[in-house]
């Protein structure tokens, strides 16, 4: 009898072990994949653009900095997107168009201020003020534009998520076409960094662009400001409460419509400012708008919607995966670059979603 019991117990233990392994297997596989990727970048990646990190530490360090600074820009744009979504449940599909519009307004202002005459400005012709002023005006214009859009179309559809998303899609179609017609968005337009930023500084053994470091600093500064605003002020407190329970906040006598308007204005402002930085970093064109809508979507899907920390984490992960896969995949025959880095962005999304359907920091609504 005892032998029988022991047998059953042993069987149950074995089954339990198998189940445990099966449950842990996906996690272990992902960890192994991650470890392989790190080892590949550090030691094995011989036939890549720069070779493995150990053989070329300077370029490896450069790629790390590239990723961090790009993450700064990603965070600025995506934080606006996630702020609007978190509070209002509005997926602002026009975020990419807002980005483009903000950038183009700043571009034309800069051309006007610095007498560019429609040609690309050299950064030596651009004083710091000729970058800062257009950037601020562009961002403020977008804030006003966002407010108008929100009041005219979104305010009276509050709570109808799909309809609001469709409305913002319609607006993005119209804005994109108007930008083509009136602001020459079909051709690439470059905002010029000011001369004071457009130079190289030495970090350790390498020379690195100060303008790119500025993007990282701007991302960090905006992150800190947003955090202080959301966690230390009354408006921020109301917004955070609104994220959790809109009806209750409204019942407590808070003017939730005003809060919505503020959130949308700040979100649009960030899109506009992101557009100015993005336009100085890589130029502006119709396609860039949709690229940045995609970037914002990927960042907030990875990080979890409505979460500031999630936006930061998502921006870093996305920037690192896209930059590293572009540099450290085996190059194609013409020894130029790799074509498959998009597949890695998809892989990152797939892995995150498989484990956390709501994103890293996402919470159910």
């Amino acid at each position: 009898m005892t032998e029988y019991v022991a047998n059953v117990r042993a069987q149950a233990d074995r089954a339990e072990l198998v189940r445990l392994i099966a449950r842990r297997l996906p996690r272990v596989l992902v960890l192994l994949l991650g470890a392989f990727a790190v080892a590949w970048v550090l030691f094995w990646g011989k036939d890549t653009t720069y070779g493995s990190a150990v053989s070329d530490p300077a370029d490896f360090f450069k790629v790390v900095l590239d990723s961090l600074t790009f993450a700064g820009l990603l965070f600025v744009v995506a934080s606006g997107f996630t702020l609007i979504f978190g509070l209002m449940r509005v997926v602002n599909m026009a975020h990419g168009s807002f980005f483009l519009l903000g950038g183009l307004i700043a571009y034309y202002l800069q051309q006007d201020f610095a007498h560019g005459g429609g040609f690309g400005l050299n950064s030596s012709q651009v004083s710091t003020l000729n970058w800062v002023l257009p950037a601020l005006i562009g961002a403020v214009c977008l804030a006003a534009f966002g407010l108008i859009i929100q009041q005219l179309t979104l305010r009276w559809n509050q709570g109808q998520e799909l309809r609001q998303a469709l409305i913002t899609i319609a607006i993005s179609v119209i804005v994109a076409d108007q930008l083509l017609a009136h602001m020459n968005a079909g051709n690439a337009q470059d905002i010029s960094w000011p001369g004071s930023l457009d130079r190289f500084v030495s970090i350790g053994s390498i020379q690195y662009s100060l303008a790119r470091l500025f993007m990282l600093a701007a991302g960090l500064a905006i992150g800190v400001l947003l955090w202080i605003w959301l966690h230390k002020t009354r408006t921020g407190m109301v917004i955070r409460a609104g994220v959790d329970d809109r009806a209750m906040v409204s019942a407590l006598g808070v003017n939730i419509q005003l809060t919505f308007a503020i959130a949308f204005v700040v979100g649009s402002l960030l899109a506009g400012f992101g557009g100015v930085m993005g336009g100085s970093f890589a130029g502006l064109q119709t396609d860039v708008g949709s690229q940045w809508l995609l970037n914002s979507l990927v960042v907030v899907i990875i990080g979890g919607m409505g979460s500031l920390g999630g936006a930061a984490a998502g921006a870093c992960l996305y920037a690192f995966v896209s930059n590293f896969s572009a540099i450290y995949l085996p190059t194609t025959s013409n020894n130029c670059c790799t074509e498959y880095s998009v597949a890695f962005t998809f892989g990152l999304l797939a892995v995150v979603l498989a484990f956390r359907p709501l994103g890293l920091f996402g919470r159910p609504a």
Partner: protein
Amino acid sequence: MRRYITLDRGIGIAALVLVVLGPLVFSGYWVSFILTQTFWLGIAATSMIFLSAYGGMVSLGQVGIYGVAGIVLGNVVTTGQVKGLHLGWSPWLGVVLGIGIATALGLLLGALASRSTGIYFLMLTLTFGVLIYYFFSSVTSFSGFSGISGIQGHTPHIVGDPTTHPNRLYYIALVTAFLVYLGVRYLVRTPFGLTLQGVRDDPVRMSSLGYNVTLHRTLAFTLAAFIASLAGVLFVWWNDHVDPTSFGLGPIIDLLIVCVIGSLYRLEGAWVGAFAFVLINNYTQSVNVPVVGGSFNTVIGLIFLVIVLLSPGGLLGIWGWVNRHGRALLAGAGATMLTKARPVKP
């Protein structure tokens, strides 16, 4: 007693008779350009409306899936000096592989997205769609940015060259569209379809009744991917050319507009919306919008905005409204016969 002949059905049958007579009634341009395009675009829209009407999932990934079907077909069938793999295999193998690979991709994407609902699902599928676009624009071995041309020279014998025999493709697209419509109508009455509608209305309850909610969503997405891939095959035969731009963000939004103009909640809306979209697209290309300027996209964007703001049910929603109020008006004038035409549901 249930009425079998209603005004809606009458109009539907009349439209069907008209398109079956097709080439006898319409000019060559209408047959080869406007109507054939309406049919394949309507099939693509059906894949989206099926998901939204019966599964409660608004997917923006359908365009990416039909794009994959088209790209695979183009890679498999073409030969010689074109972009891509130009394998030069049999046209039918191209069809099978195109549909098969696109449907398999649908299964993968569906499995990833099916745990999200509502607006999350929309964002996720949009991201998938745009990633597919960026993937094919950067990978030059499959197509690169300029795409694959000359597909019309490698169609199956029954299709022939659509430039010289537009009527064949017209009827194939028509029959496919009709079969897709009947197939979906049948499917939503099967146990699977009914369960899917249960999942749409109350996933928690269906889950506690023992139904696998994510599995049903995933399978529905896979099925929609199959329908979308049919549209992809017809699209490349019709267009002769496929490049990533034909399934980028623009076409993704266009298909959404088609569905919203028609109706996101009724299958018939797919072809109503597709027809309206193709007409607007065709006849406003050279229009300069007064006051604000801009082109076709401003026009279609404004129409889209107005429909979303005023009539979430699309054109079919407006038609239903006109129909009901028209009847009420006539009934008020004493036309008692018409008041009986539509029995009021208890």
